[in-house]
């Protein structure tokens, strides 16, 4: 499997296979990841190919999965743990926050915790309750935890390889709404992408649109429509939420003078707030209009029948951009 058009989900599988192949220390663990290949099939075929010592079905216990991973990682393994849905990531928090994030710091570098915690997240697939939330901000707030979110097959491949090779703990959140949304060519060349940079997906001069994960799709669609109206959008995929590459964002907004931040997670204390604060600190004099946020509201993610009422859409972005363009102080 290489060099042909694949989905984001295939790209995750491809990167996992590559990592297992190139490094005997890489071990996959999680619920239903073996014979079943994961409930989304992200690990499909990997147990058959690499054996049950490398691709391990665990007992049903997320605290255990995270705690085991911490211990394994301190001994030089590179555990890549799957949490079946982000809604079930909370039991891992004690281990991720109280241990994984600070192992290097506490031991002044004697030990480290090179583990990856993968989880699908976000709404839009008609899933049952607790299967659709976006709580990336909770994790991005923790010093020592890297939080990475791909938004295309190529970035899923390159960023996941980077996450696995990284010497720090990484939470790798996979936007499941776009798991199978489109196929693009991904070369299985083993090349990782950097974890310290945003990705500028499209250059533009009038306004900067900043997003990540599944909302990148709506953002790009909006940018196309706005181009037809004569509005030139720069589109940036933040990709790594912590530690975040503020420099790219500040440079872009300093150039365009305007910005709309788009995320599915709730508005309050979301990553958009962090980005806006930094822009107000570092790009205020360049701003021609107040930065805007298009986000989920500060309510509980609705059950599936009403999830579209919650999820931001292309129109929401168009309106925010047009209003920002029309702003005259």
């Amino acid at each position, binding site marked *: 499997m290489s060099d042909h058009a694949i989905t984001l989900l295939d790209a995750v599988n491809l990167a996992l296979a590559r990592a297992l192949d190139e490094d005997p220390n890489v071990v996959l663990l999680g619920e239903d990841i073996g*014979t079943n290949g994961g409930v989304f099939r992200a690990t499909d075929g990997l147990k058959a190919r690499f054996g049950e010592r490398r691709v391990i079905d665990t*007992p*049903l216990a997320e605290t255990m999965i995270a705690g085991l991973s911490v211990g394994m990682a301190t001994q030089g393994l590179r555990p890549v743990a799957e949490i079946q849905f982000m*809604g079930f990531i909370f039991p891992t928090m004690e281990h991720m926050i109280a241990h994984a994030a600070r192992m290097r710091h506490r031991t002044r570098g004697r030990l480290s915790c090179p583990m990856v915690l993968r989880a699908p997240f976000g709404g839009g697939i008609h*899933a049952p309750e607790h299967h659709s939330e976006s709580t990336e901000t909770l994790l991005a707030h923790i010093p020592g935890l890297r939080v990475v979110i791909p938004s295309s097959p190529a970035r899923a491949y390159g960023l996941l390889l980077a996450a696995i090779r990284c010497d720090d703990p990484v939470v790798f959140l996979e936007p499941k709404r776009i798991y199978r949304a489109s196929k693009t060519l991904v070369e299985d060349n083993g090349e990782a992408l950097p974890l310290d940079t945003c990705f500028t997906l499209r250059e533009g001069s009038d306004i900067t649109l900043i997003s990540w994960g599944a909302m990148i799709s709506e953002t790009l669609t909006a940018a196309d429509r706005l181009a037809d109206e004569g509005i030139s959008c720069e589109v940036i995929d933040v990709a790594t939420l912590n530690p975040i590459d503020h420099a790219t964002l500040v440079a872009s907004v300093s150039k365009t003078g305007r910005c709309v931040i788009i995320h599915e997670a709730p508005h309050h204390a979301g990553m958009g707030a962090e980005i806006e604060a930094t822009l107000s600190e570092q790009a205020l004099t360049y701003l021609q209009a107040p930065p805007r946020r298009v986000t989920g509201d500060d309510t*509980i993610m*609705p059950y599936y029948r009403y999830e579209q009422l919650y999820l931001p859409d292309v129109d929401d972005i168009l*309106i925010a951009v047009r209003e920002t363009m029309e702003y005259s102080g």
Partner: protein
Amino acid sequence: MHEISYQGEIRLTRYLDDQGVPLGEMPKWACGDSPWVTYYQQMVLARQFDTKAISLQRTGQMGTYASLLGAEAIDVVCASLMQPDDVLVPYYRNHAMQMIRGMSLTQLFLYWGGDERGSATPEMRRDLPNCVPIATQCLHACGVATALKLRGEHQAVLTMIGDGGTSKGDFLEAINVAGAWQLPVVFIINNNQWAISVPRSKQCIAPTLAQKALGAGIRGEQVDGNDAVALHEVVGQALERARAGKGPTLIEALSYRLSDHTTADDATRYRPSDELKAAWAREPVARLRNWLHSQGLWDEAREQAWQAETRQMIEDAVKAYQAIPPQTVDELYDYVYAECPAGLSEQREQARIRQQRREQGGTDHE
């Protein structure tokens, strides 16, 4: 010198064999038609509900659904033995319990149709809503039991969990505190042998899950979860002990998940088909029917009539479900806090406008 500090044993209760033939002389309390005919009727209703729910999901009229196929006896007997003022703390596979506790079939369809109002029905009294994050319900059940105990209420709490869920800390913490505080709670393990694709044997090396009770110092036992008579005795006694202040019980009900894990799952990827076939030969509904037949308490005519009646009930419930108008946008905001805070009211206002815009076809049609 060594001495034995503790020795435990786990009892398994069964009265009917796989085909519904008594394994020995039936106890006196098992004679007569009550409650067995009612149990049977409820089990048939539960199975028909299940079939309908799956077909609604398959035809896009309902969301992902967790079938209870194979667990009908466990659910029906547990719920039937509960008193109205006992408290049910369910997991996500307890539709028949909820139905017997007063939730209408329509409400059940509504919940699985992705609508919060499915958990709002007043007939659920103080029962907790479905619990999806595995094993967390066990601790809530202990909290509910603590409330009952502190208030001096002589009622019981019943909660259920899957075999996989018993691997989670929450479950072990729950049985531990239930023992330490002698809480009036009954834990039922629906051991259907699978946790999605992970078989029972990979969860825990102990030969029974009931023996986890021994570590918590509480009563633990196994029961044939496809045998309504055995369940009736074992669960009934546990509930009575709880109400009488005699402490918690852990009951491992041995059964089998005859369905896929949910409608989103495909069990053929991981489960041997001969195992499933063998399990069908032990299933609870036919087993009880055979026993009722042999006692002259049920016959083909009653079967036909009841099947028709339940089909009608379910058709009516589906129609009622489909006729329920959608929630308003406001309902997404009104229940987050006791009172809607200022910022959220503003978002609610914007959401109304947005909803209108969407109904009118988006920004280009303004």
